[in-house]
């Protein structure tokens, strides 16, 4: 924890960019898994490279989070709430990294080519094994639901900080204005 009051510029940009990407991914995924319509192919073709992009950005973001400590949570927050905040962040990071890897592994196990775009493919990361495919396919669904539920809680907590508690938590991620307090 540091004394700065905002997340670093890179952390804020990655947060909002990935928020859009991950929500898009979740909605595309849940629709794709329940349709037999013509959008299926288009959405699947988007889902694969977008997932890999999220994986790469999540690794950049995790590195940034470890190198540049996030702002401290306000002292007005009870320890249990602070623990919940930290726990939900750990879960979000874990899922951001795990979901694309499970998707990639699932396609590998199911003997599907992992097509990014055009003729560019990723290599398989797991052996061809249909039982593994079925397991990972189910895991991909359940963890997607867990990820979405965690995002809803994260959003509700953020709004609670913004509208009710009115502490430093909301501006630490939302504010993009330059302030004197940014200066070292």
């Amino acid at each position, binding site marked *: 924890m540091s004394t700065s009051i905002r997340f670093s510029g890179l952390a804020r940009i990655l947060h909002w960019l990935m928020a859009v990407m991950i929500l898009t991914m979740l909605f595309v995924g849940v629709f794709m898994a*329940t349709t*037999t319509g013509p959008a299926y192919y288009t959405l699947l073709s988007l889902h694969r490279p977008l997932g890999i992009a999220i994986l790469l950005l999540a690794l950049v973001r995790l590195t940034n989070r470890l190198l540049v400590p996030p702002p401290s949570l306000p002292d007005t927050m009870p320890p249990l709430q602070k623990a919940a905040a930290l726990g939900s962040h750990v879960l979000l990071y874990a899922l951001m990294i795990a979901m694309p890897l499970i998707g990639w592994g699932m396609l590998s196990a199911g003997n599907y080519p992992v097509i990014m775009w055009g003729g560019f493919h990723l290599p398989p990361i797991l052996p*061809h094994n*249909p*039982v593994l495919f079925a397991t990972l396919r189910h895991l991909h669904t359940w963890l997607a639901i867990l990820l979405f539920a965690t995002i809803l809680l994260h959003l*509700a907590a953020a709004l609670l900080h913004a*509208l009710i*508690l009115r502490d430093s938590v909301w501006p630490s991620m939302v504010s993009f204005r330059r302030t004197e307090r940014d200066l070292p």
Partner: protein
Amino acid sequence: MKMLPDDRPGEPGIVFRLAVVGAVPLVLGLAFIGAAGWFSPHRLTQSTLMNTFQAVDGLHPGFRRNHAKGMCVTGWFESSGQAMHLSRATLFGPVRSPVIGRFALAGGMPYQNDAPAKVRSMALRIMPPDGAEWRMGINDIPVFPVRNVSEFNTFTLATRPDPRTGKPDPARMGAFVTTHPETAQAIALIKSRPITSGFANDTYNSLDSFLFVSPNGTTTPVRWAMVPEQARQQSEPRPDETHDGRDYLFTDLIAALARAPLRWHLMITPAEPGDPVADPALPWPSSRPQIDAGVLTLNAAESEDGGPCTNFTYDPLVLPSGITPSDDPIPAARSAAYARSLTLRSGEHKPPGAITPAMIRPGEKT
């Protein structure tokens, strides 16, 4: 509420602000379950199609939900180079692509008896050295009986056995055909197709249209067929419709492959303006010129049990760069349904199939 900061003048009150805290995630959550189809009970999902196959053919754990009775084959595809100007897919170039194929009977019953008029399919996974593979499942009928997946679902359900008789109710199919004249025409074409003596001398058609993308980016809608080099013989009635006859299509194919490799030519038909691309129930004029894109050679048979064609799907949308889907809605539905079928069957215990390793290599232990 004493612990919370007081309302600020000119801003909405605490109740409103609390409502926003709850409402935003709630709306997002509702949108999510809406995307999952909770508010659209008539949406045709992968599960709908799985349930339809189960209603018609029963549940056969571990088997493909459709085209359940089948056998693996292997060989290779060698391009003639003549389709290179139509599609930049590398398998049309000067390479030899290994093939894992599968011959099957349409329908979800893995132990059904072979019979001349049952729809036969050839599924292919063509794997050029650069990994840009092409998968397809093609059939020995000239057109698909319906135009889209919703019709397919209703049509298939109409063939489900009546619990009283154990046979399809002709009135149900009659009602569908009456309201779908294009299906009536398609069924007439399907019924009048020449029925050959076996898998080896049969022609298999893509039915669906795809787009070939040329090296300079021009797209051409195409359909294709695998046309046999083996002499076409009309099917003859078998004297023995009992035990030995029940797998005769497969045992004939095993015997033919043991004698010599079997060859088919990949004949590509480019569409001309006005040809129905989006409607697989409509044929294209038979006068369309065809391009001989190369030769498929199959030289070995294997049982599905432990064979190389079991642990993946012949997803028609696993396409190389140079082939893309057209407006034909059926391949997307097949792609989605095959993925669901693979998930289901891979999590189930599969009993031995009809075509066992012992039938292919007598004397070997299975």
